[in-house]
């Protein structure tokens, strides 16, 4: 078994999915956490892929920033944890 922390990826790993969803390169985009206000590049965010979908969390406060679930070729996106994404 790998250490638990080795299951945490970062935003680089979901660059392809983000490109598919947003139509543009997003790993260098800047997101602001809607909970603690921490600002960082998407590539640096914590990413969990438990199997059913993808959860992106703030590295500072662990707030859920983005959730992606793919169903029948359609990606459902929840960005409610973000104050902004530019």
């Amino acid at each position: 078994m790998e250490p638990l922390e080795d299951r945490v990826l970062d935003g680089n790993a979901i660059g392809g999915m983000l490109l598919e969803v947003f139509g543009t390169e997003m790993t260098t985009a800047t997101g602001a956490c809607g909970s603690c206000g921490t600002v960082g590049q998407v590539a640096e965010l914590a990413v969990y892929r438990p199997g059913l979908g993808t959860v992106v969390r703030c590295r500072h406060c662990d707030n859920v920033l983005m959730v992606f679930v793919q169903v029948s070729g359609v990606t459902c996106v929840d960005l409610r944890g973000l104050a902004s994404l530019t």
Partner: protein
Amino acid sequence: MAGTAVRGRLTWLTATVGSIVDETAKVRTLSLEVPDWAGHRAGQHLDIRLTAEDGYQAERAYSIATAPGEPVAITVERLDDGEVSPYLTEELRPGDQIEVRGPVGGYFVWDPVDGGPLMLLAGGSGIVPLRAILRHRAREESPVPVRLLYSSRSWSEVIYRAELDQHAPGVAVIHTLTREQPAGWTGYARRVDQPMLAEVAWSAAQAPLAYVCGPTSFVETVAAGLVALGYSPGRVKTERFGATGS
């Protein structure tokens, strides 16, 4: 921000496997012929999608192992409990076709114009995007000085060993072997730690640009260590591949 649903816009392409090179007992490099490939930057990755007969699909991201202008290739480590890597390293043959999407990523990339000095730090197969950066630097004849600190479990598990041994001008390669060392080994023989970083890394006063890639725990240790040495967090680029498949 409100939830929404969108349809995919990025195209999956059909790649044909060209040559296959064994790098170590568990690691292979697959060259891929991809019609309509848009061209890539050093450090980018691509996604691979496998579809089972029952329709089940698995996707993984793999760093591109070659420089811009070179044919596309990926280097894959077989993970015994992996869904994708055993197929890529054991089943695929030249001429087989797989689906790829890319190139992907704009963060963990380097071009000569980004300058240096470059501090590259790799854990295991985290060497792959850094090898693309080294090749790009050589092809572009960039004078940017490079130090590479590369952590492997043993000498036989060092990926691209012959290529890294070529002593390219301006490139210093420092190995550490964490589990097993050959007889007479005089190099580092432990996991990367703060004293090692202090000995090996460029001084923060030189405003180095660092790229750190490997398992998540390796990246966390190294990135925090570089910042503790005075590196600007904005000049420490990180890529974590976890331990399950990419």
